[in-house]
């Protein structure tokens, strides 16, 4: 139990630091989603299954969806880091087409 908790806490802290340091905003949102998922596993270990379900559904699912929609509407949705912000809006449209 102490080993798995250490691993999960390490994943959480790494994901939190990565969410603030990644240049790419999509990767940062994905890091926040990973943090929420690890946190929900930790809630299961802490004997809080209700909270774990909520965290998995809300934190890892809906919150990431809200942030990703916000990214797209803010024009920050860039998969490749070389694109300029201007063309990323067109790019995201093409991605959904394909």
């Amino acid at each position, binding site marked *: 139990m102490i080993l798995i908790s250490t691993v999960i806490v390490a994943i959480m802290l790494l994901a939190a630091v990565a969410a603030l340091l990644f240049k790419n905003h999509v990767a940062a949102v994905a890091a926040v989603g990973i943090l929420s998922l690890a946190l929900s596993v930790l809630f299961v270990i802490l004997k809080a299954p209700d909270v774990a379900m909520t965290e998995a559904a*809300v934190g890892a699912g809906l919150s990431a969806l809200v942030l990703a929609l916000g990214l797209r509407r803010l024009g920050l949705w860039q998969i490749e880091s070389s694109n300029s912000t201007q063309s990323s*809006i067109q790019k995201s449209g093409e991605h959904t087409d394909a």
Partner: protein
Amino acid sequence: MRNLASLLFAGGLGFLLMVFGLQFDFGNAPMLVGQAIQSAAPEQVGAANIVTAVVLGYRGIDTLGELAILFAASTAVGLILGHRHTSTKPDPDSGLILRAGGELLMPLLLVVGLYIILHGHLTPGGGFQGGVILAAAFFIPVLARPSTPLKHTGMMLIEGFSGAAFILIGLAALYSGGEFLQPLLDKGTLGNLVSAGTLPLLYLAVGLKVGAELAGLLAHLAAAEVSES
């Protein structure tokens, strides 16, 4: 300079929290309220899931306030983003996989969401978790076909009626001589689907309200105009 001061602030905050936190006796929570609730909940509320008994029974007014906060947030998002101008053309429809998967997933998600809501007093789960899944079910068709937007009036009707139902159940308890939101009806046997009195009805109202509200919020965010520049 500003960065240094900010880092100093963060480090100091961490040190302060660590000093306070290690004073707690971890793993031996006193549970003055918790033990009383745990021993009294099976007779008073009749829900197998004690967290549900706390959320809807002992702290029901908290849940009502939480629903009010969620309503305020969703209304504020609607106000800030406003309505999409009809002149701007909607996003093109998404690909075949998302459209077919959306049609397949939506009824399944509805069933799973309602299952989780209705078993909230027996197993982990309940109105909030199931409501989020219902919101996903309502939102997936919008994601698959942005040209056919969500019917906001229908969502508002569901939301309003379920919110009113929550308050009406609370007022019914008040009318029958109890406290506001006190569980009514027959407690049933512990562990049955039809048990715990009005708790499943309250959770159904919570779930529908959360689902409709979050779906409307997502639809607002998805339909917001793409910012220029």
